[in-house]
């Protein structure tokens, strides 16, 4: 099996060897296949950010390994350096990290560090701007003249311009209004379709996760508490709640209907899906 990213027995420990020793993540086995879309959920402080900071070598494991395309990224300096371009990390509120004079230069920052030719850089910037929905006329503007949503897209384009094999998004839609949220989800979905790139999303939005992820890892207390498909994970509502999470409102509605003896499926995560099922059921009742 070819994994883009694989964590093997990964642990990260703060204040190791002292009496304050604490594991931020412990014994994590985690893998992402080529082109897969993986969701990571878990309450604040469950270790999600610590985990993803290992994927491109921002943190060094206390024990265990991180493999990118089968190679341990801590093997030597060059491998570590290259992992930064293979694995793109898009932090929460990435718009706060814009700094260049123009949007173009900001998006070009990553490719420039990859020592690509001027032409290649330009091509990549334009391609990434297109993927991220950054308008052409904005490229020559200062990033600080853009609206919040436009800034976020510019920041995302900066990661996409490195054309990494996997992009990690940490809470990509935090702070966005409902339309902005939907647009961003669509952007990620389109990007994946067009590039075949693997994607990891960290989010608190159980709704967004249900509509996007192929597989989900649930973190709790620094460990992987659950993993599986959306169906496998979301069918355990009680367990999720005990870990400070929940299921989408629509899923809860269907659970209540089932509890009242109505014959509907449990694995309903979107309003569209729910409407269809209930309409059929009502049609059957009236005929």
């Amino acid at each position, binding site marked *: 099996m070819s994994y883009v990213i694989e964590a093997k027995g990964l642990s990260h420990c703060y204040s190791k060897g002292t009496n304050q020793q604490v594991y931020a993540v412990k014994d994590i086995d985690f893998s992402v296949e080529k082109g897969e879309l993986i969701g990571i959920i*878990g*309450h*604040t*402080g469950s270790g999600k950010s610590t985990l993803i900071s290992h994927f491109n070598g921002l943190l060094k494991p206390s024990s265990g390994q991180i493999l990118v395309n089968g190679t341990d990224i801590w093997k030597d300096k060059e491998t570590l350096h290259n992992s930064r371009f293979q694995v793109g990390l898009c932090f*929460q509120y990435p718009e706060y990290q814009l700094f260049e004079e123009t949007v173009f230069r900001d998006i070009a920052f990553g490719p420039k560090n990859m020592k690509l030719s001027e032409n290649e850089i330009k091509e990549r910037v334009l391609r990434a701007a297109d993927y991220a929905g950054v308008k052409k006329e904005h490229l020559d503007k200062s990033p600080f003249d853009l*609206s*919040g*949503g436009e800034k976020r897209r510019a920041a995302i384009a900066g990661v996409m311009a490195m054309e990494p094999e996997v992009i990690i998004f940490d*809470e990509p839609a*935090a*702070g*966005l*209004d*409902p*339309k*902005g*949220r939907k647009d961003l989800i669509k952007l990620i979905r389109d990007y994946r379709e067009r590039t075949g790139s693997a994607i990891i999303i960290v989010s*608190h939005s*159980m*709704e967004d996760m249900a509509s996007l992820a192929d597989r989900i890892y649930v973190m709790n207390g620094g460990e992987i508490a659950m993993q599986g498909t959306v169906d496998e994970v979301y069918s355990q509502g009680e367990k999720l709640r005990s870990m*400070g*999470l*929940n299921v*989408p*409102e*629509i899923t*809860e*509605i269907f659970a*209540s*209907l089932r509890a*009242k*003896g*109505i*014959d509907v499926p449990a694995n309903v995560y979107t*309003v569209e899906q*729910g*409407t269809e099922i*209930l*309409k059929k*059921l*009502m049609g059957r*009742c*009236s005929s």
Partner: protein
Amino acid sequence: MKEKLIEFKNVSFAYEADGEAVPETKDALKGVNLDIYKGEFLAVLGHNGSGKSTLAKLCNAIYEPTEGTVSVKGIIPDTEEKADEVRRIVGMVFQNPDNQIVATIVEDDVAFGPENLGIEPKEIRKRVDEALKSVNMYELRHREPHKLSGGQKQRVAIAGVIAMQTDCIVLDEPTAMLDPKGRDEVMQTIQRLNKELGITIVLITHFMDEAVQADRVAVMNSGRIVMQGSPREVFAQNEKLNECGLDLPQSTELCKRLGIKDTVLNASECVEKIISMLGGAV
């Protein structure tokens, strides 16, 4: 007759760049009239850049209107003294819990506000304890804030405002960065403060399921208030909400799509409607 606490009269606001007003800034307010009543729970909705945060910051004199007046209990904060007075009536809680905690121990952080008001130590002690109890953080009063969860930090920030004994708390997207449990904790706290202590709540949010918990909802678009009413009145108008870049709570939307005429606001109402619609046939 309901008593007005905060009154926006024909308020416009424009941000300045290089000392000059920027006429077309998105966050600007244009001719806003809004009354916020004592003891109510008002939710303010609107897309990013619609002017919600500007509105919030006008409530306790962080900003001054470019035109019109904002008065709090009849006070127009046109001098520093009056602005201070207004800030003793209206407190603010912001989005990022990490940006508003100043002390290294939870109870010291809560005491920061009352200390600045020059209140005597004995009274501060009493207020801090009461405030922490009211947000369910009393047990954790000796903890270090940076070791708390996001929801706990936000509740500490809320306690800090309560300890100043403000009549009103304005919360600007307080749950945007929280996990589901943290969101629940903060929403339950807000409800309790409103219902049990009678504190006026103004909640700015992007979450529709939070807005349905309010007494009244105001919707902003392009710097204006375009809708106002009870959650049931506002969420009945899905097309208008869509135009404003907003959507419906999932329960409301499901029932609408099923052709159920009444506007439902939560999962249990929704389940009830569906069951009665399926009737005895199941």
